[in-house]
């Protein structure tokens, strides 16, 4: 119940803050659009290129959106109160992670394959892109949130986020994109898909628990 209220709070704050909350998604559409425009010939003949473009843009979009993940709660003191109790901080963190995924992960999971279909990708290939994004975007949210939490309250966090986060995304990028490429080539892809799922289960289990102590530490200094 409390979790649901916290989740609702996250969504309401984001949506009521106006256009700002949709900027990451607009950014996603823009970048995929620019890529498809510039690589027009290649993209329409080769769906592998578009799959890669969508995946890379997903990473960039997550960096853009993660910068604000804990910022508001840190500024207004919500975080300082939440870390006083380890149950409270876990509930807040889980609500925040799901809120973030609802507002960036789900739209990307829907928009990615949709853009693919519009560019003439086969339906099965677009569906596979959607499936890998469905597995990949929560993983990306988890990994990104952990690195963002390390930098809460530091002045120069934003720029640093890029070089700290991108290396962490390499495994999920390689496997997620790899599944799509193998599927397009009609090659066996089960092991790569299982690796994606392993990364998802691993991060989704461990990271909400790790975030509590990390956020607590950020409030000490």
């Amino acid at each position, binding site marked *: 119940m409390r979790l649901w209220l916290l989740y609702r709070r996250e969504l309401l704050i984001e949506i009521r803050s106006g256009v700002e909350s949709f900027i990451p998604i607009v950014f996603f559409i823009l970048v995929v659009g620019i890529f498809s425009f510039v690589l027009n010939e290649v993209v329409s003949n080769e769906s592998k290129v578009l799959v890669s473009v969508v995946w890379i843009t997903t990473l960039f979009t997550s960096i853009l959106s993660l910068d604000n993940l804990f910022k508001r709660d840190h500024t207004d003191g919500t975080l300082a109160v939440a870390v006083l109790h380890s149950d409270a901080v876990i509930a807040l963190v889980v609500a925040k992670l799901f809120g973030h995924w609802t507002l960036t992960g789900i739209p990307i999971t829907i928009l990615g394959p949709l853009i693919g279909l519009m560019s003439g990708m086969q339906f099965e290939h677009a569906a596979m892109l959607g499936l890998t994004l469905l597995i990949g975007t929560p993983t990306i949210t988890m*990994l990104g949130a*952990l*690195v963002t939490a*390390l*930098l809460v309250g*530091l002045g*120069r966090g934003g720029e*640093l986020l890029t*070089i*700290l986060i*991108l*290396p*962490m995304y*390499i*495994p999920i990028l*390689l496997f997620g994109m*790899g599944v799509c490429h193998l599927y397009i080539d009609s090659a066996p892809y089960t092991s790569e898909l299982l690796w994606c799922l392993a*990364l998802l289960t691993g991060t989704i289990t461990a990271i909400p628990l*790790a975030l509590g*102590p*990390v956020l607590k*530490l*950020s409030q*000490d*200094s």
Partner: protein
Amino acid sequence: MHRLASPQHFFLDTKMWVVWLYVVGIIGLLVGSIWGLAFVPPERFQGDSFRIIFVHVPVAIFAQIVYISLAIAGGVHLVWKLRMADVYMAAATPVGFWLTALALGSGMMWGIPTWGTPWEWDARIVSTFFLLILFLGLIVLRQVIPNPARATTALSILAIVGAINIPIIKYSVVWFNTLHQPASIELFGDISIHTIYRIPLFTNIASVFILTAGIILANMRYLTIERNASKTWVQPWIQGRDQ
């Protein structure tokens, strides 16, 4: 071993270790390199250009091992709060950075005669490049976070999470279609290198290990002195240096 977990005993006990590690490491490296460069016959397909293996393989192996050791030290810090674990991380990060840079640099030199290109965007090279960025991130993060306790925990977590890249680097030559060749040395398996090349190569691998340990240990001793500068047992050492 418990004695070494205390900064004071660590500092007092390890002075001669550094000297020995340096002496043995440098002699071994000289022997292995001269042997490899001057005394073994050229390779059948690559001619003389293969000789960079005696530099490339040892530094590449220890670039990854130093990163794994950082993640382990991070775990030790998170579980047992050992002060020396943090000292180890601070001392080993720059060493790992330079080993990775050397692995990339020597690989590029090797790539020119054999592949015809110093750089190719294949999985092994790119994942090693990201290892370099991981080390850089660890170095920068320590400088950015002012509170030492928070910095240590942040670094431990980053090191542990970043360790998911190590299997990617190790198995990139198996899982993906790479220009880089698969491993020639397996810990529990066949070694596809002829015996005459094996001896100088293993000499160099052992020497790079010993030298890396020596450099990290010297760094750790320096950091121990720096962090405990206000303690009484440090005073004679600081004054001795100033005179």
